[in-house]
C-alpha cells in the first residue's frame, strides 16, 4: 500500500500498455492495399480460437481482410467503453449478451433486423428462443448469438444412488427430498449442494423459473416483492438453513473439482465449460459417476439463464456489410460445429445439435434440453448491478440477518434507486 496510488492510475497504465502492444501486434501483418479491413474484437479463449476459422472466410470473400484483436474478459468491458468514448470502436465485436442493453443505451451498436430479414444463413427460427431474445431490446435486434451458456445441475450419480434415488430431480419437491436424504447420509462435514455465495447465477436461475418478471413497468422498477421471487429466495435460503448447502463463497473452496470428486457436495449448478473441466480434472474413480441434468423447477423441469455471447456491429463502423458477412459465416451450422470442437462452446442454433459429436454427447444432452427453456434476464443497462445487489442481499438473508420478506423489500428499494436514471431517461423520451 505504501507508495501505491489510486487503482485508476495503474489500471490506466495497464490498459495503455495493452493497447500499445495490441497496436504493435496488429501492425505486423499488413493486408494487401485496397482490401476492406474488418476490425473484430473477441474475448478470451474465443478470441484465440476464432483466428483458425478466418482463413476460410477470407478465401470465400476475396477483398475482405479480418483483423482480430483479443481482449481478456477482465478488461473487455472497460476497453469497450473507453473505445466508445474515444471513437475507436471496432467494426464487429463479441459481446456478452447481458451487456447488449448497456451498449444499446449508449447508442453504440446498430440494429440488425434488416440484415437478418435478407439473410439465408441466419434463420431466427433455428435459434433457441430464449437466447435469441437476449439480443432484442425495445423490439429491435442488436446481436446474433454466437455461443450459449446456461446453468444446470451437475451431480454425483453414485451419491444420489446411495441416498436411494436412481434419477436426478425434476421438481423442487423431489430436489428437496433428495438433498435431505443426501445430507442425512453425508453427516456434518459434507453437503448436498454447493451454492457459492459470491455467484448470483444460481439464485437468478431459480428466480427466472417464476412466472413474474424480475422488473416491472418496462424495467422502471424492481419486482422482487412478487410472490414468485420470494418463493425462489425462500427455496435458496432454505437450502442453507437446512444445512444442505455450506455458506461458502467460491474463494473458500480452493478447488471445486477436488471437492466434487471427494463428495463434499453432490449437486453443483454450473455451465457448459465445466463439462471439459470435469472430464479432465475429476479423479478416474468418479469419472463414470457424474452426470448433468436440466435444472428442476417449482413444478417439473424449470427454466434457466440464457447466457453466452453474441456478435454485434458497431454504429460507427463504415464496413457494416463486410462485418455482416463475417457474422453470417460464423453463424453457418458447419462453422458453428467446428467452433464447438475447438472451444467446447455450445451452439445457439438447433442445426449443429442434430449431428455428431453434439448429438451423441451424454453430458451435453441435458444442455440441449435446458436450452429450450432458457430465459433472458431483464434487458436493462442496469441489470448487472441489480443482479449483484441481489447476491449481496441474498447473502444477508442466508446469514439470518434479515428475513426473506425483508430481503425482497430491500432489493426493491435498491433496484428502484439504481433505476432512477432510467425512469428519468424514459420520461424525457430517451432510450428509444
Amino acid at each position: 500500500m505504501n507508495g501505491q496510488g489510486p487503482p485508476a492510475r495503474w489500471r490506466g497504465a495497464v490498459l495503455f500498455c495493452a493497447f500499445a502492444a495490441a497496436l504493435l501486434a496488429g501492425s505486423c501483418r499488413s493486408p494487401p492495399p485496397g482490401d476492406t479491413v474488418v476490425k473484430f474484437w473477441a474475448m478470451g479463449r474465443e478470441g484465440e480460437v476464432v483466428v483458425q476459422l478466418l482463413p476460410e472466410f477470407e478465401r470465400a470473400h476475396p477483398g475482405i481482410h479480418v483483423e482480430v484483436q483479443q481482449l481478456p474478459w477482465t478488461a473487455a468491458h472497460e476497453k469497450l467503453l473507453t473505445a466508445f468514448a474515444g471513437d475507436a470502436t471496432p467494426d464487429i465485436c463479441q459481446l456478452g449478451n447481458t451487456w447488449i442493453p448497456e451498449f444499446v443505451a449508449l447508442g453504440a451498436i446498430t440494429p440488425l433486423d434488416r440484415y437478418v430479414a435478407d439473410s439465408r444463413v441466419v434463420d431466427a427460427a433455428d435459434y433457441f428462443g430464449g437466447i435469441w431474445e437476449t439480443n432484442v431490446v425495445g423490439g429491435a435486434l442488436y446481436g446474433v448469438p454466437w455461443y450459449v451458456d446456461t446453468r444446470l445441475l451437475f451431480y454425483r450419480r453414485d451419491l444420489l444412488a446411495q441416498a436411494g434415488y436412481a434419477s436426478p430431480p425434476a421438481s423442487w419437491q423431489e430436489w428437496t427430498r433428495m438433498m435431505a436424504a443426501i445430507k442425512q447420509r453425508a453427516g456434518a462435514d459434507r453437503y448436498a449442494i454447493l451454492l457459492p455465495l459470491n455467484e448470483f447465477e444460481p439464485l437468478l436461475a431459480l428466480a427466472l423459473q417464476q412466472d413474474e418478471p424480475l422488473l416491472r413497468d418496462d424495467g422502471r422498477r424492481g419486482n422482487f416483492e412478487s410472490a414468485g421471487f420470494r418463493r425462489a429466495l425462500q427455496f435458496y435460503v432454505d437450502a442453507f438453513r437446512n444445512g444442505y448447502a455450506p455458506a461458502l463463497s467460491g474463494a473458500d473452496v480452493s478447488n471445486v473439482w477436488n471437492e466434487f470428486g471427494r463428495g463434499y457436495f453432490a449437486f453443483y449448478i454450473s455451465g457448459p465449460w465445466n463439462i471439459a473441466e470435469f472430464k479432465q480434472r475429476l479423479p478416474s474413480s468418479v469419472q463414470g459417476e457424474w452426470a448433468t441434468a436440466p435444472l428442476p423447477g417449482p413444478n417439473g423441469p424449470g427454466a434457466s439463464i440464457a447466457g453466452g455471447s453474441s456478435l454485434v456491429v458497431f454504429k460507427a463502423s463504415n464496413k457494416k456489410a463486410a462485418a455482416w458477412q463475417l457474422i453470417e459465416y460464423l453463424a453457418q451450422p458447419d462453422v458453428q460445429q467446428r467452433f464447438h470442437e475447438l472451444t467446447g462452446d455450445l451452439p445457439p442454433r438447433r442445426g449443429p445439435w442434430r449431428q455428431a459429436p453434439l448429438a451423441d454427447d451424454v453430458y451435453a444432452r441435458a444442455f440441449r434440453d435446458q436450452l429450450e427453456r432458457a430465459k433472458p434476464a431483464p434487458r436493462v443497462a442496469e441489470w448487472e448491478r441489480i443482479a449483484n445487489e441481489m447476491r449481496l442481499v441474498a447473502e444477508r438473508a442466508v446469514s439470518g440477518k434479515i428475513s426473506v420478506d425483508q430481503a425482497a423489500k430491500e432489493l426493491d428499494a435498491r433496484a428502484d434507486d439504481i433505476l432512477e436514471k432510467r425512469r428519468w431517461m424514459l420520461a424525457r423520451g430517451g432510450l428509444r
Partner: protein
Amino acid sequence: MRFDRAAWWFVAPALLVIAVFFFFPILAALLISLTDFDIYALADLSNLRFVGLGNYLKLLETPQFWQALGNTLYFVVAGVPLSIGASLGAALLLHSRLARFKPFFRTALFAPVVTTLVAVAVIWRYMFNTRYGLLNYALGGIGIDPIDWLGDPHWAMPAIILFAVWKNFGYNMIIFLAGLQSIPEELYEAARIDGASIWRQLRSITLPMLSPVVWLVGILTIAGYFQLFAEPYVMTQGGPLQSTVSVLYFMYEEGFKWWNLGSASAVAFVLFLLIFAVTALQLRGRKWTAA
C-alpha cells in the same frame, strides 16, 4: 527581476506537466462529482444532470458507504499500530549487536514488499483455508478450533490486516533501521556506564531519538492504509457480507464497475478530505508535543 523571470522559465515545463496531469484532472473530478455522470451521459452529454452536493448527501445516507468507512477505520486503527510495531520490532532485532546473518534477515524481511501482491495473495488464501490451511493446522496443534478466516464476517478483516501487515512491514523496517543507525553510539556507551538497563536505554535514548522517524512513518502509513484496496480486491472481493469493502473498493465498484463516475468522484473527495484531516491533526499533534 530578470533573474526571477529566468527561474520561472526553467520551472515552467515542470509546472505545466503538473498542471495538466495533476491539477486539471483533480478539478475535472471535482466538477464531475457535482453531476450524475454515468453511461447515459457518456452516450450523450445532454443526459448529464447537475446535482450540486447531491452525490455527497446521498453518500451520507447510504449504509454501504458507512460500512465501508467503518471497515476502513477498523483497518487503519488496528493495522497501523500493528504494522509500525512489527516494523520497529524487526528493525530493533536487526540492529541489535546480538543479531547474526543480518544481510540475510534484512533481505528476507523486506522480500514481501517487493513480491507481487496477487501471487502472495493466492498463497495466503491457501494458508487461510478453513479445512486445509496451514494457519488452522497450527491453531489445531494448540487446541484451537478451526477459524473460517475468509468466510466469517468477523474474521475476514483480521485476516486482511494480518496479510497487509506481513506484506508491508518490511518497508517501514528499512526506514527505522536507517533511523536507528543514525543514533550516535556514544549515547549508549554513556548510558551503559551509568548502569542503565536495556529497557531504560530503549525508553530514554532509542525512542526519543527515533521520534521524528516514527512521526514520518506514522503519517505515511496512515495515509497508505486509508487507501486499502488491493488486498480485499484479490482476497475476498469485499465479502463476506461486505465486511472487507473499503472506501476505495467502494469507489472502484461505483466508478469502474458500474460507471457512476459522478458518485465515485464524490467518494474519492470524501476520502481525500478524511486523509487530509487526519494528517493535519497529526502535524498539529507533532507541533504540540514538540513545543
